C-alpha cells in the first residue's frame, strides 16, 4: 500500500504542477465569475435602444408605448427583487410580490410603481443599504428625424430612414446622437385590415438590422394585439373592462410529485429546474472524466516512451503502478470537480440576474435530491471504467502521436452521452434511456441523467453492479496489458495478441 500511495502522491503532485491543471481548475470558475458579473453589469449598463414609429393609422402608437412601458416596469420590479435580496435584514420577508410575473407587475404598477414599493421595503432594509438604481429603459421611442417628412409615402420615409437604420447616419438624442435601432411603419388602413383579419405583411412593417433582439418586436406585437382586440370587443359590443378582468383570471393547476414525502409533494419551479440539473451534471461528468483521462493517458505514455516503466517495475508491481496512478489521477480529478461544484454552487447563490429568485430553492432541491452523491458515484465508477480503457491504450501506444490516432474512435464513442443527454432527460424511462443504461460505457452518464426521475430500484442497483463489474474487468485487463506492454516497443500488438495477454496465455 505504501508504494501505491507513493505513486499516487507523485501523480498528484506532478499533475498539480502542470499549467493544464490550473487552467482547468480556474477556467470554469472564471467563466462563471465573468458571466455573473458581466450579466449584472450588462443588465445595468446596457444602453437604451432607440426606435421610431410612423403610425399613419393613428391607432397603435399609444398601445405600443404602453406595452414598452409595461416591459420596463417589469424589469424595474425584477431589479427591485434583486435589490431586496441583497439588502433586506436577516429574517425580513416583505409582503409584496417581487416575482415579476404578470399579476405581480400589474399589482406593482397599480400600487404606484417603484417609489411605492421602495417606501414599503425601506423599514426592512439594512442600515447601510445603497440607494436603489432603476435600470435604464431598454427601448425608447424617438421622433422621426426632422428632415424626413412624416406625411410622405411609406416608401419615401423608409428610403430616408435606411441610412439611419444601417448606421450611416445617427439620430439626435438628448443633446447627443445614437444609432437608430428599429423603425415601425404602419399604413393608414392597417387597423381596419387587421380587424378583418386581412392585413398583409406590407401593412405593418418592422425594420431593423438586428434580428436577434426580440424584446422590442415582442413588446410591439403585444401592444398591437392588445389594441386590435380592444377595437374588436368595442365593435361587437363587448364590454372591454369585463373582458380584461376575465383575461386576468388564471387557472392554477397544482403539480404534485408522488415520489416526494407526504406533505411536501408540491412541485415548485425550483423542483422543475432541479429536474434539468442532471443534464448539467452529465456535462460536468463528461468534461471531468475526459479531462482526467487525458492526464492518465499522457502519464502512461510518458512512462512507456521515456523508458521509465522498467525502473518502476523493478521497484513496484504492475498492480501497484496501476492503483497508484488511478488514485493519484482520481484525486486530481476530484479536486478539479470539487472546485467546480463548490464554485458553481457559490456562484449561483451569488447570482442576481434574471430568474435569481428560483435559483436558491432550486439549489436546495438539488442538494436534497441525492444528485450529488449520485454524481460522485457515477464519476468514480465512470472514471474507473474509462481509466481501464485509457490505461490499456496508453500502454499499447509507443508515443503520444499513436495515442492520438487511437483516441479518434474512443472520442466518437464518448460523444454519444453528449448527443443523447437532452433526449434522455426529457424521457428518462424511454427506450433510448433504457438501452443506454445497459451499455457499460454509457451507464454512468445515463444513470446520472435519469437520477432525478427516480429510475426503478432494480435498474439503479443493476446499473451500479454493471458499472462495478465493467470497471473491475477493464482494470483487471489493463493490469495484464500493462505488465507486458509497458516494456514492449516497436510495432503495436495485434488485437488477437492483446486478447492472449488478457487471457494470460503469453510467454512474457
Amino acid at each position: 500500500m505504501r508504494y501505491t500511495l507513493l505513486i499516487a502522491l507523485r501523480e498528484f503532485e506532478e499533475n498539480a504542477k502542470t499549467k493544464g491543471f490550473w487552467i482547468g481548475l480556474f477556467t470554469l470558475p472564471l467563466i462563471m465569475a465573468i458571466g455573473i458579473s458581466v450579466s449584472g453589469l450588462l443588465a445595468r449598463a446596457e444602453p437604451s435602444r432607440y426606435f421610431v414609429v410612423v403610425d399613419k393609422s393613428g391607432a397603435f402608437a399609444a398601445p405600443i408605448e404602453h406595452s414598452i412601458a409595461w416591459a420596463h416596469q417589469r424589469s424595474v420590479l425584477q431589479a427591485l427583487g434583486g435589490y431586496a435580496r441583497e439588502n433586506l435584514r436577516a429574517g425580513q420577508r416583505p409582503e409584496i410580490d417581487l416575482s415579476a410575473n404578470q399579476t405581480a407587475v400589474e399589482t406593482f404598477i397599480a400600487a404606484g410603481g417603484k417609489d411605492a414599493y421602495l417606501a414599503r421595503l425601506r423599514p426592512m432594509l439594512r442600515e447601510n443599504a445603497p440607494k436603489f438604481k432603476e435600470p435604464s429603459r431598454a427601448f425608447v421611442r424617438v421622433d422621426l428625424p426632422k428632415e424626413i417628412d412624416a406625411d410622405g409615402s411609406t416608401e419615401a420615409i423608409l428610403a430616408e430612414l435606411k441610412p439611419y437604420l444601417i448606421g450611416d447616419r445617427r439620430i439626435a438624442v438628448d443633446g447627443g446622437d445614437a444609432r437608430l435601432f428599429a423603425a415601425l411603419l404602419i399604413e393608414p388602413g392597417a387597423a381596419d385590415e387587421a380587424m378583418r383579419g386581412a392585413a398583409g405583411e406590407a401593412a405593418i412593417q418592422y425594420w431593423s438590422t438586428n434580428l436577434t433582439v426580440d424584446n422590442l418586436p415582442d413588446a410591439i406585437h403585444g401592444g398591437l394585439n392588445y389594441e386590435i382586440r380592444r377595437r374588436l370587443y368595442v365593435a361587437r359590443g363587448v364590454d372591454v373592462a369585463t373582458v380584461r378582468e376575465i383575461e386576468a383570471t388564471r387557472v392554477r393547476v397544482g403539480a404534485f410529485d408522488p415520489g416526494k414525502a407526504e406533505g411536501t409533494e408540491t412541485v415548485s419551479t425550483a423542483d422543475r429546474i432541479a429536474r434539468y440539473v442532471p443534464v448539467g451534471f452529465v456535462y460536468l461528468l463528461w468534461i471531468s472524466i475526459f479531462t482526467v483521462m487525458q492526464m492518465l493517458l499522457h502519464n502512461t505514455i510518458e512512462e512507456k516512451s521515456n523508458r521509465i516503466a522498467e525502473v518502476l517495475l523493478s521497484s513496484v508491481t504492475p498492480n501497484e503502478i496501476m492503483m497508484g496512478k488511478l488514485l493519484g489521477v482520481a484525486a486530481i480529478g476530484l479536486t478539479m470537480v470539487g472546485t467546480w461544484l463548490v464554485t458553481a454552487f457559490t456562484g449561483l447563490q451569488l447570482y442576481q440576474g434574471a430568474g435569481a429568485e428560483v435559483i436558491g430553492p432550486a439549489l436546495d432541491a438539488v442538494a436534497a435530491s441525492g444528485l450529488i452523491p449520485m454524481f460522485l458515484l457515477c464519476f468514480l465508477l465512470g472514471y474507473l471504467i474509462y481509466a481501464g480503457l485509457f490505461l490499456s491504450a496508453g500502454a499499447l501506444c509507443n508515443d503520444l502521436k499513436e495515442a492520438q490516432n487511437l483516441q479518434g474512435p474512443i472520442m466518437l464513442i464518448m460523444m454519444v452521452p453528449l448527443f443523447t443527454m437532452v433526449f434522455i432527460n426529457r424521457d428518462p424511462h424511454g427506450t433510448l434511456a433504457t438501452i443506454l443504461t445497459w451499455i457499460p460505457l454509457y451507464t454512468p452518464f445515463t444513470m446520472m441523467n435519469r437520477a432525478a426521475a427516480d429510475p426503478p430500484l432494480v435498474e439503479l442497483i443493476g446499473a451500479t453492479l454493471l458499472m462495478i463489474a465493467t470497471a473491475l474487468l477493464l482494470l483487471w485487463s489493463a493490469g495484464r496489458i500493462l505488465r507486458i506492454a509497458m516494456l514492449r516497443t516497436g510495432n503495436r500488438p495485434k488485437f488477437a495478441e492483446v486478447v492472449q495477454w488478457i487471457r494470460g496465455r503469453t510467454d512474457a
Partner: protein
Amino acid sequence: MNGQVLELENVTKRFGNFTAVHGVSLTIPRGSIYGFLGPNGAGKTTTIRMIFDIIKPTSGRITILGASSALNVRPRIGYLPEEKGLYKAMTAAATVAYFASLKGLSRKAAKQRAHELLERYGLGEFVDAKIQALSKGMSQKVQVICAVAHEPEFVVLDEPFSGLDPVNQQVLEKLIRDLAQRGSTVLFSTHVMQHAERLCDHLLLIVKGRKIFDGTVAGAKGTIPRRVLISTESSIGPLAGLDSVAEIKPLGESPTKPGTKDWEIRLRGQTSAQAILERCFQSGIVLRRFDHSEPSLHDAFVALVGAESLAKEQA
C-alpha cells in the same frame, strides 16, 4: 545463501519459439564486482529482467538475497536498466528522492540523500533543474544515482557507461568502486572491455542465451592461447620444432616494414615465450618485431564469442 547475493539455477526463458536464455546457472558471491558480458541479443537484458522479476522465467529458479522474488527484497536491491529514462518535468533531486522512497527510504531521508549524492557526483548545481534541462550524460548520471541512492546490497547496472563521456565514465567507475568498498555487490553489463577489465573481479559471458564463461578476469584471459607476434626478414622454419609452439600462422608482408613478414605464433598452454626468443638468436633469424603482450580481455571476448558474433555486433 550465506555468501551469495544471487543464484540462478538452470534458468530458461522462451518467447514463443525463440529461446532467449538457455538453462543459465550462476552464483554471484557477496561483495564482488561482477561483469556481465555478451554480444547484442545474447540474453543479458532478459536475464536481468528475470532477476528483478519483471518477467518470469519459463523454467528454472532464481534466488536473490535469499528471496524467491526481487520484489520481496526491493529495498535491498538497485537497478539501472539499459534503456534509460526519467520523468522529464521532475527536478533531479525530486527524481532521485522519488525512486529512493520507492525503495523504502522515508520521504525526508530520501530528499536528504538525493541532495547529498547529487552534490557528491558533480550535479550539485542541478538539484533543482528539471530532467528535460539536463544533458543526456547528466540525466544518465541522475539515473545511476537513482539506482543506488538507497544504498542497496546488490546493484545491477545494465550498460551504465553507454552515452557517457570519458570524464563521466571515470566518475561512474568511481561510483561503482565506492559501492563495492561499502560492501555492495555490483553486477554490470557492458560492451566496453576496458571497464570490465579495470573493475571486475568476476566475469559472466553469455552468447545466444547460453553461458560460455563464468570466472575471474585472469581465468577469462587464460582461456585463449598465448601468442607471440613477430616480424622477420627471413624464414622462421627453425621455430616449428619447438615444444612450446602450437601453431605458426603467416600474416603476410608487414604493412609498416616493407621486405619483412609478419607471423603469429600460438604457444602451447601457458608456456613461456622465452624459448622462441632463444631459438631466434640461435638460428640467426633477424627479428624486426617481437611482441609478447598479455592477451587483453577484448582478445578473450573475441575468442570466446567467436568471429561471427563479433562481426554481427560491429555491424
